[in-house]
């Protein structure tokens, strides 16, 4: 069943990991750089993988397009995936999404890595979801791979009943001064 190219088992494994992680097509040459193997070898591994996913009847397919290689769901599964997507679970904004939305609203235009910096956690997945849901959008230089800057969308503003982000309440309204913090802490402490 698994005809693994025996010469480079390590390469196949890492290529699969890169494909799973990537959220846009990855050029074979880039994988070659990371792996320090010739591009041709990576391409051979990719073609073998694509063929094996198909012959094994996997739920995903590996396709090459102009920019590179990417995993997609098998089109046969589309009816079930539609049902999955329309399910209620995705309709709710997670706490992490709301936080990123708030950061983008107040600090946009802002890059992915700046958002990660502020939150202390990788936030790419959340950013991507918010873009897909039309709540934030890439502005600035753009282009695939470029360090996109993100800001909230017009749809977001409309749904919040705002004409622009300038209408958001000033952040200082929410930053308690040092004295207030001490007060609060005193009230929270068990022996106060």
């Amino acid at each position: 069943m698994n005809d693994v190219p025996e010469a480079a088992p390590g390469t196949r494994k890492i290529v699969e990991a890169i494909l799973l992680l990537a959220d846009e097509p990855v050029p074979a040459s880039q994988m070659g750089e990371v792996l320090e193997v010739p591009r041709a070898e990576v391409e051979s591994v990719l073609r073998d993988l694509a063929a094996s996913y198909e012959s094994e009847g996997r739920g995903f397919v590996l396709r090459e397009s102009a920019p590179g290689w990417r995993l997609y769901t098998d089109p046969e599964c589309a009816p079930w995936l539609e049902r999955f997507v329309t399910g209620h679970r995705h309709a709710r904004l997670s706490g992490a999404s709301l936080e990123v939305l708030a950061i983008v609203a107040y600090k946009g235009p802002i890059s992915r890595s700046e958002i990660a910096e502020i939150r202390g956690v990788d936030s790419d997945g959340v950013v991507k979801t918010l873009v897909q849901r039309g709540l934030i959008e890439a502005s600035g230089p753009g282009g695939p791979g470029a360090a996109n800057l993100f800001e909230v969308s017009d749809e977001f503003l409309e749904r919040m009943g705002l004409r622009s982000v300038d209408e958001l309440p000033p952040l200082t309204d929410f930053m308690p001064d040092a004295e207030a913090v001490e007060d609060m802490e005193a009230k929270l402490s068990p022996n106060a």
Partner: protein
Amino acid sequence: MAYEVKLKVFEGPIDLLLHLITRQRVDIYDVSLAQITEEYLAAISGLEHPDLETATGFLVVAATLLELKSARLLPGRRGDEEETHLLEERDLLLARLVECSTFREAGAWLARGLEAGASAHGRSAGLEEAFVDLAPKMVLKTTPERLGALAAAALAPRPEPEVDVSHVSPIRATVRDAIVEVAAFLRGRETPAAFRELCSDAAERIDVVVRFLALLELFKAGAVDLVQVDRFGDIRATWTGEAEADEVLADADEYVIDLREAGR
């Protein structure tokens, strides 16, 4: 004896004691309660920006250590009841040390687990184009105010309050002086005074520590009675008049901790 007090940043009174008591030393068998007590006092004398609550936590542990230590230095002057009480205090402290050590180890284990987890990246490529339009509109149950609060919280510097004792501040007060002051404060009062009141004019943490030690000296000499209802509760002191400050001073000499020496 001169100690080199090199301390990391401590997160609490038990944490500090655990550090002193478990650290590896060449002369491990020479480490005595007396030495640990002195090091503990030296460390807390260097605490900066105390709030009374934190100070109390450290002082309660210090008090227990001093009590245990003095029991050792004054053998045979205690009844069975006191002996039992002391052993209970010791066991309570021991239990808290074991608990603290356990959670610290568990925390280290969690850290390894989280680190291992961080090397596995979850699939998060998001929806393929074909499905994006099918996704139900996200419910935006939020208000500009809530977003503001979230942004402010996210942008606020991360709080990691830790008690820094890496800095041992110069000593500006002595136990001997404090004995006289505390005695003067308590003498003639009708009602018990809270330790807090005794320290109401204390400008520095060291003053609080020194007054606390003075109070213990007075207590040991029988000049005051001390009552503490809860573990973290306030300590209340009453003047008994059974000893005078100068007697306490004379008697106290044998085991007064010299903070200047230990703090260096």
